[in-house]
Structures are given as structure tokens and as C-alpha cells.
């Protein structure tokens, strides 16, 4: 019987590829501004005051961007970590590791949907 993960391989590779392409494109400004510029005082903290963050995040475009910003990097991460573990430790544990990593990405993606809906 074909392993279920092999059947899902095209979908996993699609999400992995978009995780690299769109994930990278979206993460760069997020990390630059939210992770570095605001904490270091380069950008005033009120740029992302609660009211403004809610206004940006609750817009339909904002929700889509935030969803991509969470879900796509999770899939890129899960797939790359899986292959790193195969490279270093062989495929012996892959039957356990791969479903676990993809489960994290799946649950994270579902939670991302809930998180953007809650804004």
C-alpha cells in the first residue's frame, strides 16, 4: 500500500515551496519592523499600538497576509526539519518524525485560521 504521506507529497511540496517563496517575502518586513525596529526604538512603538494593529489585522488583506505569515513558514519549517533529520540520522525514524512535524504544521495552520478570525 502506498504510504499516506506519499499521496500527500504534492500538497506538502506546494506548501513547502510557497513557504520558502511567500514565507520569505512576508517574513522579511515582519522581522525587520516587528522583531527589530520597534523593539530597538528605531520605529516608535505606537506604530503598532493595539488600535492600529487591530485596524490593520482585521482588514481582509491583513488577515490573508497574517495567515500566510503563520502557516507558510510552518510548512517550510516542518518539511526542511524532516529532511535535515533524514540527512543526519537516516530514514529509520521518519515514519514517526514526518507525521509529527506535519501535524505541528497542520495544527498551526488551523490555529492561524482561528487566530486571524479572532481579530
Amino acid at each position: 500500500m502506498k504510504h499516506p504521506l506519499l499521496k500527500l507529497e504534492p500538497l506538502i511540496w506546494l506548501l513547502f515551496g510557497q513557504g520558502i517563496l511567500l514565507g520569505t517575502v512576508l517574513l522579511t518586513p515582519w522581522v525587520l519592523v516587528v522583531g527589530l525596529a520597534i523593539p530597538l526604538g528605531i520605529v516608535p512603538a505606537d506604530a503598532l499600538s493595539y488600535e492600529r494593529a487591530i485596524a490593520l489585522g482585521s482588514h481582509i488583506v491583513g488577515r490573508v497576509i497574517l495567515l500566510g505569515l503563520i502557516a507558510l513558514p510552518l510548512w517550510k519549517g516542518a518539511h526542511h526539519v524532516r529532511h535535515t533529520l533524514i540527512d543526519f540520522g537516516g530514514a529509520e525514524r521518519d515514519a514517526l518524525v514526518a507525521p509529527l512535524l506535519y501535524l505541528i504544521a497542520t495544527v498551526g495552520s488551523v490555529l492561524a485560521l482561528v487566530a486571524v478570525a479572532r481579530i
Partner: protein
Amino acid sequence: MSRNAHPQAMAPAKPGATRTAPPQLPDRFPFGGRYLAYTLFDLTGVLYLLLGLLVLGAVWSLGSGESAWNAVLERYRSPFYVGFHAIALVGVIFVGIRFFGFFPKSQPPRIGSVNPPPKSVILAMLYALWLGITVCLSIVLAGGVFR
């Protein structure tokens, strides 16, 4: 001297009719020569996984109310988070440069009846997209517009 790889690493689903030599890990794997960039690219998976979870936490907090959101911004000011985001930025830029470098090489020789653009044009378009979105979203996040 090359080392033994996992004996089942390249095993076919059914044993072949003839015996084959066990697979070998390349001499310079994982950090020698060109394997360094390959291994580092793989390891950025950990960064992306952590970043995805971190953004999820931040967005969840935003939906939980003002005090939760302010706590996230306050937490991000700690040296630990600033250090992590500095490493993450380097990692994200490394992934972008490496992946965009692959992209033109992976194009088919022909797309239907037309040839794909030259590699330099594809690369320029990718970098323009990356830079453009980075600048636009940074301006929005930093409060330059939509205030």
C-alpha cells in the same frame, strides 16, 4: 575517507535482483565545501518553524485584547527576542538569496510556444518583488501610511 550512510537511505521499495553497494555519505557532508550552504539551508527550517509559531502567538495575543498585545511588544524588547530576530533576519535573507538563485535554473527550456525570459530577467523580477513587498509592508507596519 567517506563514511557509511544509513544502509536503508536509498533502499528501493522491493529488493532488486542484483546486490548493490551500501550508500555512502559524501566526504565533506555536512559542513565541508558546498555542503555547508546545503546544510544551513536545511537548518533554516528550524528558524521558520519557530518564526511561524512566534507570529501565531503574537496574532493570537492581538485577538485576546490590548494587554496581551502590549505584553507581546514588551517581550520582544528583551535581548533574547532581539537576538533571535537578528538571527532570523539573516536566515530569512539567506533563504531568499539561495532560493531565488535556484529559481531561474529550474525553469523549463520552453513554456508552451514561448521561451522563458533570460535568467537574469527572472532573477531581477524576483528581487524586485521581494524588495518591493518588503518596502511596502515595512512602511505599513512602521506607520508610514494608513494611520
